[in-house]
Every structure is written in C-alpha cells, then in structure tokens.
C-alpha cells in the first residue's frame, strides 16, 4: 500500500505540472473566441427571404459576371490563363460552377452586394482609399435581382465524384486553391506566389501541415472569420457553408495527418500487448519474490 501512496504523490505532482503547462497555458495563450457563425448574421444588406428566380438570375449572371468569372460547368470558359488573370485582377477570379454550393446563401448575396464588407477587409480597402477590391459592389442592384443570381448559382448541379475524398479535394481546391498550395497533395496555388503576395501582403502559406500546426478547432474558427483570430490579416472571410468548410478541413486532415487511422488502430493493440507483458511480469515477479519476503 505504501507503494501506491508514493505513486499517488507522483501522479498528483505530475498532474498539476501537466495542467499548468498544457491546458492552462494554452488557454492563456490562445483565448477561446466566440463560436463560428455559419449564418454570417452580421451581414444584413440583402433580404435573403426573397425567393430567387433562376431564369432571371441566369440572365443577370451572363450580363454581369462572366466578363471576369468562368462558369465551366455551364459552358462559360475562362477568358485568360491563370497567370494572366492573376496579374490583371491581383488574384485569379473564382470559377462560379461550385459557388452556389460552397458559399453560404446569406454570405453569397451580401458578397455580391458589397465584397469588402462581406469578406471583412475594410482595413485593406478603406472607403475612398487608393486600393479597391477587384470585384465591384453590386449595391445598386435590387435585393430581388441579387437573390435571383444566387438562386441561379445554387441551381447549377454539383459535379459527381467517385469518392467522398475526391469531393473534399475539389471543394478544397475551389475554396482555397486560388491562393493556397498544398504540396503534400500535389496542389499548387492558381495565383502565382509573388502576385498573391502583392495582393494579400504576404505569401499565402502552404496548407500541407496546417491541420497539425493549427488543429481542427482553430481552423474552424479561423476560416469562418480570419480577422477574429488574426487581426489585420489579408485573408478574406470566404463565407463557406458549414458543410463546405467541414469538407475543406477534412481534406486538410486527410493530407496533413494521413496516418491517423493507422495510428489509432495500432495504438490499442500495442497497449494491449504491453498489458499482457505487464501481467506476466507481475506473475513472474510474485513467483520470484515468494522466497524473498
């Protein structure tokens, strides 16, 4: 029993130290932000209760969007190569084929209305400042017209994928791949690094190990609204729906922590092996010490 008392003292000392240097220190260094808001409820410029008209939306999109944006799935190809588009606009404009699925409805409507406010980049593009967002505001449009365009974008059927992994990869590329590379997945940013640096203020980092360096929880909050965790960053709020964001983070985990399943499956087996070893060692010790005590 004395040995268990000693063990208890050691466990207590180690537990206090561990609590101090891990959970407590992390809590102090990284205070928990307010939970992610997937409704983007701070954006209120467009009445999203209006029902959009797909046919009218298509007409409006053709008239207003495809000069800069491609919609490959609908037969509107990109006008320029990625590098030309990047030098023209600062960043490669997104293809809109998946926009209706990636971006949350309220965000998408408000982004069309006023990109700077929706993407939370007022510090970068102040009103009347020299720099302007490459996408103009459509705040002169009626809310109904904006909702028509949203309805059209959402009506574009989602591509079919052979696996969930392929779908997650496609979502990652569409949502992040214009600026971010992911070398471990063989994904290169569509906007060249030096152009992106000029546009964003810093070279967007490679995402290969971000699931490890940031962790799922941080990524959830960060992608939802980068300014809350990294004030002043050039990264826009991209307005991913909860589902699309989960796809993106799952894909980052699939690439960045590729051996997770193998690790978790092997772990308990090794522990079980050690338990068997320990029990045999205990029995052997008891047998040997029988003559000693």
């Amino acid at each position: 029993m004395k040995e268990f008392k000693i063990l208890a003292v050691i466990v207590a000392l180690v537990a206090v130290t561990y609590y101090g240097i891990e959970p407590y220190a992390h809590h102090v260094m990284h205070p928990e932000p307010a939970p992610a808001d997937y409704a983007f409820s701070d954006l209120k410029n467009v009445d999203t209760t209006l029902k959009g008209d797909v046919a009218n939306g298509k007409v409006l999109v053709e008239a207003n969007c495809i000069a800069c944006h491609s919609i490959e799935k609908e037969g509107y190809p990109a006008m320029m190569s990625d590098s030309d588009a990047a030098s023209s606009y600062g960043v490669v404009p997104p293809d809109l084929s998946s926009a209706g699925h990636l971006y949350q409805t309220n965000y998408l409507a408000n982004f069309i209305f006023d990109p700077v406010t929706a993407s939370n980049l007022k510090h970068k593009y102040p009103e009347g400042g020299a720099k302007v967002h490459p996408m103009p505001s459509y705040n002169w449009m009626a809310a109904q017209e904006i909702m028509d365009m949203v309805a059209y974008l959402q009506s574009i059927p989602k591509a079919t994928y052979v696996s969930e992994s392929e779908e997650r990869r496609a979502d990652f590329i569409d949502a992040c791949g214009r600026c971010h590379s992911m070398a471990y997945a063989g994904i290169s940013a569509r906007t060249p690094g030096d152009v992106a640096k000029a546009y964003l203020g810093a070279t967007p980092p490679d995402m290969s190990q971000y699931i490890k360096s940031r962790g799922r929880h941080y990524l959830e909050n960060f992608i939802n609204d980068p300014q809350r965790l990294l004030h002043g960053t050039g990264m826009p709020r991209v307005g991913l729906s909860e589902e699309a964001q989960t796809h993106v983070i799952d894909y980052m985990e699939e690439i960045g922590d590729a051996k997770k399943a193998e690790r978790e499956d092997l772990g308990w087996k090794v522990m079980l092996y050690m338990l068997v070893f320990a029990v045999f060692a205990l029995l052997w010790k008891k047998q040997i010490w029988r003559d000693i005590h």
Partner: protein
Amino acid sequence: MAEFKKADSMLEWFDQRLGVVNFVKVMMTEYWIPKNINFLWAMGVVITVLFTLLLVSGIFLLMYYKPDVNMAFDSVNFTIMQDVAYGWLFRHIHAVGASVVFLVIYIHMFTGIYYGSYKKGREMIWISGMLLFVLFSAEGFSGYMLPWGQMSYWAAYVITEIFGGIPLIGDELVVWIRGNFYVSDATLTRFFMLHVLLIPLAILGAIVFHFYALRFPHVNNEEGEFFDFDEEAEKYKAGDKKGSKVIPFWPVFLSKDFMVVGFFMIFFFYLTFYHYGFAMDAINFDKADGLKTPAHIYPEWYFLWSYEVLRGFFFDIAGISGKDLGLIAFGIANAIFFLLPWLDRSPMVKPANQRPYFKYWFWILMADLIVLTIYGKLPPTGVNAWVGFASSMTFLVLFAVLPFITKLEAKKVGGK
C-alpha cells in the same frame, strides 16, 4: 598463449575465451541490491529502456532524415511521417520518448534527493547522474532543432543567444556555436552531428560510468540503512533469502523492474499513439521562418524551470542589468545540483520526511520547481513576471540556505 583443453559445452567454450560465467556472476547474479526498496528504484531501468527505444527509433529516423534547411522539414513531415511504412511510429516514439525520459529522469533525480542517495560515499553516483542530465539536455535541445519547424528555429535562436551574455567572448561565441551570424544551415548540420554522434557517444560513456559508480558504494535503500553487503550476500547465498538484506540484480531485482516497465509502457504507448501533443508542439509543424517570430516562444517543458530562472530577473538591480542577472542565475541553476552532496552538511541518510529540517526544504523545492515550470511557459507579463521573479529568488535562496539548515539539522540529530 595459455593451454586450452577441449570444451565440453558451448558455455565452456565461451567461458574459456571470455570468462562469461564469472562475468554474469559479477554483473548479474551476484551483483547485490538492497531488498528494502520500492518501485522508485526501478526508474533507472525505465530510463534505460526509454533510452534504448530512443536509440533504435533514432537509427530508423536517421535513414530518411535530411539535415539541410531546404529538405529537413519535408523529410520529417512528409517522407518519415507519410511515405515510409511506420515512419510516423518511429517519429512518435522518438518525440514522446524524448519528453517522457525527462519526466522519469526528474523522478529518478528527486528520488535520489528525497532518500539522500547522493552523499556519504555516493557522491560519484550523483555527479555522474547529473552529468547524464546535462548530456540528455544537450541531446534534447539539439534534437529539437532537427525537424526545422518554427519552434525548432526560434528556440535555437533564443538559447544560442544566451551565450552572448558571457563577458568578453559572448558575441564571438554565439557566432562560433551557430557557424553563422544567424541560425542557419550550418547550425542545423552541426546540431545534427551533435545529436546523432558526439552527444550519444558521450551519453553511452556516461551511462557506463554511472553504473560503475554504483558498484562500490552500492544502491541506497528506503531507510538509508548502512550494512555490510558482503555479509548479507553470504547469508543469501547460504539460502537465507528471507533473512538477508540483499537480493541479486538478476533475477530478483529485474523481475520487479520488468513489471514496473510493463505497466509504465502501457502509459507510454498511450501517449505515443493518442496524446502526443505535449511532445510535438503544434507550432513546430510550421516550417522555420527567420522573418516571422511566433507570438510565444518557449522551450520544451523539461527546460521551463531553468528558462524561468533566466527570465525571472526582468529589471536591473544595483546597476546590473536584468539580462545579466538572469544569465548568472541561469548558470547557477544549471550547476548547483552538482554541488548538492556538499551543500547538504547533515550526515543523515534518511528519507526526507524523517529529517527534521530537510523535509521542509525538499517540499518547498518541489513546489518551487513546479511553479517555475508552469510560469516558464506562460507569457511573462504583468503579475506573471513577478511570480517568475519570486520563484526564481526562492530557488536561489533555497540553495543558499541549504548548508545552514542541514548544519542545524546535524546539530539536532547529533551526528547520526
């Protein structure tokens, strides 16, 4: 050459040439350990097991690791962690093993302090153990640089910078250590050499020395009792196993150690597979970037207490800059444990709780080290800075008063 008669068995063949029978006796079956011990006496074997795991996993990692600033990060995080079959397992064992071995070293070390196993003939055991502690620290620090992540880089930057505080030669010394004016490829490659060759060689030598140092003064026991080992060994050999105060290293002592190792390894592998974040800091999965300082720089947990002593002095005292004071205190903190056998002036070899004054000293030291460790990680701002200062001062004062406390204790117990 001596005459050899034809051997009747393989054992005899080897015995003629290597004296194996006697060797096994001296090293194992007639190497005597006190019987009156608890599981804390198994920590040495636990450390040996962990060191073996580190050595073996390190050899596998060495086959794929590239000590070059352009390749190191990906060779660890892609090649080893993803490409090589079970490469991730070796890295996890290596990283978690390096962290956990310090936990066990600290338990081993404070067991020695608690039971007074550093004095009255056991000084060289203590000195060689402290030497191992320093070597393991150097090994841990040099190894931490190799993945070439942000914390690798910035911890290397901060720690090598410390040497700049040494008078006269400081600035040149920093350049000499780094092999450049800043932490660079030259730094990485030389720390790689230190980590995989020079320091491991020194550690192996020091382990042999540490084991050898145990032979003459013998292992201490739970009550600090001194007795005649030869007499007790004779009793044991004559068959009075119950009456003898000693047991042989093999199989009796090791049978208990194997059991402790077995249960300990369940915990170790739990950490390796499911709870490794404490040993593989998230920030280190960002590639090293000399132009981007992380918001918080801290060393691995096992260096936090001495790191906090270093930065505990954040203001000038009597015209000496806080930085210099911190450096002096840091130097003292790293050297003072070596002197413990001579700072403790009491002849008592007993568990701390049976010593009238030392027991307070011991538990205050433990509490102070835990406070230093925790505040060594927290940002040194506001009240944290003052807690750091107070606990650093407490540490220094504890060692300054130890000779006087133990002298009083010696008087009180009358030289026993």
